[in-house]
């Protein structure tokens, strides 16, 4: 039972991180206003995948860990409401901007799109920060909701997320600009990637201090516990990516950016495991009954077997589309 739950957790977590990374990728893209055409072009195939991953993550969470879901949403609903607002505005306005062809309406659409791209990653990460700070009580809030929502940790997690989003987004856009043969845009996003690296290091340090002050047990878990290798990977590799961009070395930078952001999340996850809500609710306590877990595994298996190949096919078509013109 425990084993199954852990498997389900790691899968659900994996999906979660996937959602996070897509989100980051898309969100960061929005910051750069001038390169709208490139961003639009680069993001078209991924933006809808965002929503789908996220819905899947939420659904897996409430089915697999109902009590966790109840606790988190009861305490942190304002954060989720704002994240949701950002999410829907971004999705809708990206689509509409993509379809609209009159320059008069382009500007306001883009502004809304950009702002909403900041909202979503900030508030989602703030929710994670609030969970990590240990302020979320099992079942329902035992302190005023605003206290659970607003803490040094939630705010600093939100800022880290925005910086990380910008960082990985810029990194990927450098790659896209190269692929589409737009040298001016390569330099444009390279500069931004460097700036984002510096920002990430600064807010990352602040966040680490916040963790140390507010939840020292998590702090030690991150630096000496199972999360340590991942934490160290993030700390060590962030400057490396910045350096690569600074010197214009176009190798490995995308993979490394993914590693940086991915290990950041994993470091947090491992540092508080086996607790879902730090020091209160463990995975085993929150898990749904056996039958449900089995069904979730089947669904996850279907996602892996059926969805990923078809997603691959779609991406393949898209890449072909980018290479050749349609022959109709």
């Amino acid at each position, binding site marked *: 039972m425990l084993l199954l739950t852990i498997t389900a957790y790691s899968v659900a977590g994996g999906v979660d991180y996937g959602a996070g990374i897509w989100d980051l990728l898309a969100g960061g893209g929005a910051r750069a206003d001038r390169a709208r055409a490139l961003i639009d072009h680069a993001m*078209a195939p991924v933006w809808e995948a965002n929503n789908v991953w996220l819905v899947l993550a939420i659904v897996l969470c409430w089915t697999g860990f109902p009590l966790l*879901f109840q606790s988190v949403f009861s305490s942190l609903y304002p954060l*989720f409401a704002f994240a949701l607002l950002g999410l829907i505005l971004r999705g809708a306005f990206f689509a509409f901007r993509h379809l609209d062809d009159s320059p008069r309406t382009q500007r306001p659409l883009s502004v809304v799109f950009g702002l909403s791209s900041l909202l979503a990653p900030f508030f989602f990460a703030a929710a994670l920060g609030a969970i990590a700070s240990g302020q979320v009580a099992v079942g329902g809030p035992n302190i005023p909701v605003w206290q659970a929502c607003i803490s040094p940790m939630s705010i600093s997690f939100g800022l880290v997320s925005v910086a990380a989003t910008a960082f990985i987004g810029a990194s990927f856009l450098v790659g896209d600009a190269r692929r589409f*043969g737009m040298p001016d845009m390569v330099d444009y996003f390279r500069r931004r990637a460097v700036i984002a690296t510096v920002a990430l290091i600064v807010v990352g340090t602040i966040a680490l201090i916040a963790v140390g002050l507010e939840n020292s047990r998590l702090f030690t878990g991150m630096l000496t516990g199972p999360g340590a290798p991942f934490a160290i990977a993030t700390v060590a590799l962030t400057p490396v990516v910045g350096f690569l961009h600074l010197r214009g070395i176009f190798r490995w930078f995308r993979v490394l950016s993914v590693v940086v952001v991915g290990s950041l999340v994993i470091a947090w996850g491992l540092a508080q495991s086996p607790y879902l809500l730090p020091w209160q609710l463990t995975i085993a306590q929150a898990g749904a009954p056996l039958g449900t877990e089995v069904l979730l595994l089947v669904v996850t298996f279907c*996602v892996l077997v059926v969805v990923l190949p078809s997603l691959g096919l779609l991406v393949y078509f898209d890449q072909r589309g980018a290479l050749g013109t349609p022959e109709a």
Partner: protein
Amino acid sequence: MHFLTSFAAESALVPSRVQMAFTLAYHVILVPLGVAFPAYTLLMEGIGIYKKDPVAIRIARRWSVVMAVQFAVGAVTGTILSFEFGILWPRLMGRFGAALGMGFAIEGLAFFLEAIFIGIYLYGWTRLRPRTHFMLGLALPPAGVLGTISVLAANSFMNTPRGITLGSSGQVVSVDVLGALFTPALAYEFWHFLIATYIAAGFLVASIYAVAWLRGRRDHYQRLAFAIPFTIAAILTPAEIIVGDLSARALVADQPAKFAAMEVTWKTRSHNPEVIGGLLNDSGQVNFGISIPSFDSILIGLSPDSVAPGLTSVAANARPTIAEANLTHLAFDAMVGLGSAGVALTVWYFLVLLFRRRLPQSRWFYRAASLAGVGSYAAVETGWVTTEVGRQPWIVYNLMRVSDAVTGASGAFVWSMLSVLIVVYATMAVIAITLLMKLAGRWHREDAGQAPTAPEEGAPYGPRSEIVSARRPRRAKQGMSWIFQSLITAVVAIFGLGVLIVLVIALSFLGLGAVARRSIRGLRRSSSS
């Protein structure tokens, strides 16, 4: 000031219900097209391929764009709904998530598949051979059906919870997966709703071309685009009435209070009249309305002696309030009325088809047909109101009250969230409609002789239009080799077969036989009591 503080302290129950109703009502508008429209589009494409009719292909290609636009909006409203389960009803999910959530987990899978295959379908128009493209598209209708089953499994669990073992404090301790997924209500809810989506989508699409007919467009394009969806919706309409009748009868046993509310029956009795219109008052009398003596009893058990359950057979705090019962009743009557109007239109259509051997030519027919789209949507909405309001005050029937599931957030918070959502939804509606009008205008000009464009270019999920920049010109590649295309076809065929097998298994659980059995059981119970 006093008003403000009391406002802030108000329970979130009312605004949460209003918000859920609003967002769901909006989402339900998008569902029929999402589930059923791909099937119509594929049928049209199939006709185009089989009869080598370029006009049919052109229609299918344009429909696929509309499909994508509305699916994009549906994806957004669906995401909002999944958040609302947490923001508004955290305790529902905390307590029953392990059972209720399973349907949604499967729906997540179906939604994923649908999104991807809509993308592939749109991309494929110019990149695949017609047959391969058609085969790939065949994945869409089963994905829609899978999504319908799974969401309705969750809803049926709320209506007739089964397959769970409750612990001492009411928490779910074990879940029987099949039992909790295939609850009794699913058998009738599934068929009733699935057919409804095909009818609503068919009538809606046809109604657009009925308007075109009234405006004087009477070519092959208009005839084809009108006749195909209209005929299918028309065939299904009488079937829907039968399934609906079986569903209502099954409710006598499954949810007597809901049935009593639908028929505004106060006391359990035989020779119960069928009341059309009319409102129940606090003392249990029905004012206004037309009453047909004993007809409700006849509908339940084919005899005036059949016993109809009354609202008072359930404790006052466990049944809908008078206002809720009246709303349920009026919504139910509206749904049945619209359904009957649909049958009348259908009979008209088939009589003309049968005796004149051609499509109707009467202006009045097309006027009626152009209302059929809106009418069938109204029927879907009222049917949904009937089932949801009729379940009150329960969120999970007889196990959890709506008031026990609601968030601890303040009423003010939920009200403000609701107002933001209203603005967002209104904006989405305006933009989506503008967009569709623009597309319609473009297609109209094309048909009048301008050079055609690829309709799916730039649509959500569709291929990206070429980027405007200093790109190195590259040589256009040839289409994919036939080996590769055959390979894809084989993969999709295997996938389709798999989905089909799963569906057949699922459907055998849900066979119409099961619906019939349930309604017979309801019939026996009502005549024995």
